[in-house]
């Protein structure tokens, strides 16, 4: 008789695809199998074992005591607190985190600030023409992958959300779609594709601008290489029934032209004159998109929010690492995990933060207080957002130490009580 337990319809936060069709097998409190497995999904779930400690200055303490101490420290540092949203938190935990931040006049920032912020700011200026992933899969007949091969960072994007499956309007699946792969400098192109265009980094914005000009009825007169490339792509796009442009909104090793996001948004919007078109902005996992959604509904802004005046202010100009390194903070609360390759890892870890999140007690830097919690969607139930902002249910595959949302709600109550006592 097997002691295996199967949990079905599990949602994976390994990347922003947030596939919710996984089956997880748990045997003796370890995850032993994840199907269908992609490399990122396997890495995300691991064996599911996490520590369950609560530490204060390197010594174990009771949870209630740690939370009281933390609330006192935050209240003492009121107006000079940083709440940093790492990855792998449920939306419920993020909501509670903002409650704490609001109470103590903290600055809230997140991984978004040093990664996808440029595209979000551009969309705030212009709007955008987009679609949820299912729409792209069901309708797209011409795809342009702009400087991205999604197979490594978004392993199931092709098979589950875009070119390969059969769609309601694309009964022949991959055979009913034309795929154009555009490489930009070192940003690789998708393999295999139906058409390939190679651009240098210098040519990129000129080509995007010329495509848009053609879409708006002004085809390029010159016979330059960029004009030819633009002409080929423009013709395919305008011949589409539903065109889909795909780019990676997360940073890659290659420095990227900050005008790319704007040029892609403008082009996609313009394409909705002669035909229909949507831009897919690929986003990484860990529910960072959920963090942006919660910040937006509670403050109006998706990242870089400053509560020091008693209400939310948007501070995109000093977001991310630049803001963290400004030495303004007396108390730093890191929620969730901070990957070692995060642009802010060094800056945050130098500040001896309090950490509440999975494996907090094993953080590779000194912490003041560390409270281990479960991982969103592995231990903690709740909600996470896909890259296209579709909210998805998170199930619990196995028992964790304590849910991050519960800890943060308790912290919010403790902080509120302390502030009440001060006023009273």
């Amino acid at each position, binding site marked *: 008789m097997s002691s295996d337990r199967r949990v079905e319809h599990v949602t994976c936060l390994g990347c922003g695809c947030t596939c919710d069709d996984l089956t997880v097998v748990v045997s003796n409190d370890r995850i032993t199998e994840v199907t269908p497995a992609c490399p990122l999904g396997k890495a995300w779930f691991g064996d599911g074992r996490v520590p369950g400690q609560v530490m204060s200055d390197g010594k174990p303490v009771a949870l209630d005591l740690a939370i009281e101490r933390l609330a006192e420290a935050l209240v003492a540092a009121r107006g000079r607190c940083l709440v940093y949203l790492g990855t792998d938190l449920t939306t419920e935990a993020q909501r509670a985190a903002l409650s704490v931040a609001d109470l103590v006049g903290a600055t809230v920032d997140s991984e978004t600030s040093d990664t996808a912020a440029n595209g979000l700011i551009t969309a705030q200026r212009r709007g955008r023409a987009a679609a949820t992933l299912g729409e792209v899969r069901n309708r797209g007949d011409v795809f342009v992958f702009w400087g991205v091969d999604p197979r490594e960072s978004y392993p199931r994007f092709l098979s589950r959300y875009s070119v390969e499956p059969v769609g309601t309007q694309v009964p022949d699946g991959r055979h009913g779609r034309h795929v154009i792969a555009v490489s930009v400098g070192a940003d690789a192109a998708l393999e295999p594709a139906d058409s390939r265009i190679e651009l240098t980094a210098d040519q990129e914005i000129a080509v995007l601008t010329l495509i848009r000009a053609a879409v708006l009825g002004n085809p390029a007169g010159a016979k330059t290489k960029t004009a030819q490339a633009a002409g080929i792509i423009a013709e395919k796009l305008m011949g589409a029934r539903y065109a889909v442009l795909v780019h990676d909104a997360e940073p890659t090793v290659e420095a990227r032209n900050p005008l790319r996001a704007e040029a892609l948004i403008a082009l996609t919007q313009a394409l909705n004159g002669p035909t229909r078109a949507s831009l897919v902005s690929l986003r990484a996992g860990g529910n960072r998109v959920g963090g942006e959604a919660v910040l937006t509904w509670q403050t109006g802004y998706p990242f870089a929010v400053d509560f020091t005046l008693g209400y939310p202010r948007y501070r995109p100009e000093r977001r991310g690492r630049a803001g963290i390194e400004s030495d303004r903070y007396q108390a730093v609360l890191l929620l969730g995990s901070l990957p070692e390759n995060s642009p802010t890892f060094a800056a945050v870890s130098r500040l001896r933060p309090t950490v509440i999140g999975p494996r907090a007690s094993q953080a590779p830097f000194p912490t003041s207080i560390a409270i281990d919690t479960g991982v969103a969607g592995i231990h903690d139930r709740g909600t996470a957002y896909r890259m296209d902002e*579709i909210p998805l249910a998170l199930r619990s595959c196995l028992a964790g130490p304590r849910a991050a949302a519960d800890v943060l709600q308790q912290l919010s109550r403790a902080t509120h009580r302390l502030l009440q006592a001060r006023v009273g």
Partner: protein
Amino acid sequence: MSSSRLRLVGGTIYDPANQVDGEARDLCIEDGRIVASLPDGAPTLDVKGMVVMAGGVDIHSHLASSSCNHARRLLPEEHAADPAPRPELTLEELARSGTGGTVPTTFTTGYRYAGLGYTTVFDAAVAPVAARHSHAELDDTPCVDAGIFVLMGNDEYLLRQVAAGERERARDYAAWLLGSAGGYAIKVVNPGGIEAWKSGQRNLSGLDEPLKGRGITARDILETLATAGNEIGLPHPVHIHCNNLGMPGNVDVTLASMRALAGRRAHFTHLQFHSYGGPGWRSAAVPIMEYVNGHPEVSVDVGQVMFGPATTITADGPVEYLLHRSSGRKWLNLDIELETGCGIVPIVYKDKAAVSALQWAIGLELFLLSQDPWRVILSTDHPNGGSFLSYPALIQLLMDRSVRDDRLKQVNPKLLAGSALADGLAREYTLNEIAIITRAGPARLLGLKQKGHLGVGADADVTVYSRDPDIARMFASPRFVLKGGTLIVEEGQLRRAPAGRRLRLAPAYDTALLPDLRGYFDAYSTVSFANYPVQELRDDPLPL
């Protein structure tokens, strides 16, 4: 003061659902409900000479949806200009800050509705695949009982059933979808037109233009869903945003839609946006209201345009594309898989702009030509025609002809020739009629038996206004507001912010639907069938 008993002493009560029109008498409250009497010595609240009504009920707003959140993100400049610090609640209450503008943040939305004396609100357009998001936003929207209307008029599975003539399966699907989303009513937006936008047909010109490749029309969709809503026994009939919103000459499709459903209960929303004559721009309020007045099965809300900033948020993607093209303003379009669309364009209604002035006038005409206030409800389609914060100014325009006539003199008259308003409409709404169009009427149309009135057994949602010759000021800052018997606004200040109740339904359906539906999900959806229904909602569904 949050005693379970409270006697409001000496107020003048306007409770049209119980035929009470300005009677001076006490109102007794116990355990969150209105009761007939209280023992001597029960706590009292002196409201002598003040106007007492049930809490306001907003039948059509956009306050808690993924589309609203896209709009919030698009408007950092509005938020920066309207900071909303934490309200000074009583000590034990955890208050939250936020930002305002035309699409305020969630906590601020709840506080501001309460500060206006509104205690029940419905979000009128939720894509079911994102319903989980709406419920999360509503969890963060205190002070108001709230529900959501579920978008169905362009749903792929539903269109397939309509095309196949499977009306019973369409009905069962509508019931399943409503329950899965935790919704309260069926919403239809531009039936078939959003699918036309997404599939390259761009839009449907009228009720009988076939949707390409499917052989069905807007008429088929409307009839199917109106019948489904009535057969399921929903307390609120199908809530319809007609085809061709905002287009000159759209009166034809609006009247055709009403006639198509003649004899069946149906609610036509933000009617102002659908009451345009043609060719060119002119008012068609008169023929529209002739029809509405003569057909008791029809109800409407007006969708008044108020001058100033607004944000248009709608599932009606094609109309937003046109608005973007004509206004040059920033534009967001989001096609939502298998279900619907979303378009957002922030705009400003200017009194010196001829079309804005016409829209403003048409809305007022609909109100002033209405012969039955129980069926012609106050709304601005917040934030499409203006913020809900403009309701007091709108009430003033309805109650005070001199203010209205003065305002009329200031607007661009170019398109107003021949309009009923320009010709002079003398009517002034009474307080009793205002109580009907802002609480009793919407509550009745929504089938909320414990809302919108002050009879024994009703929820003790009560708003108390100080009389003021400046009607807008009177309605903008109620003196007291009670929510479920708890005093949340005292002396004009928000003092408590209790969580509201979720108003939702879980209609029965024939489970024979499920195997086919599961197969459809497996073939085309990117969300697993098992994960699709929203789980673990705060309150139980209401009984049907």
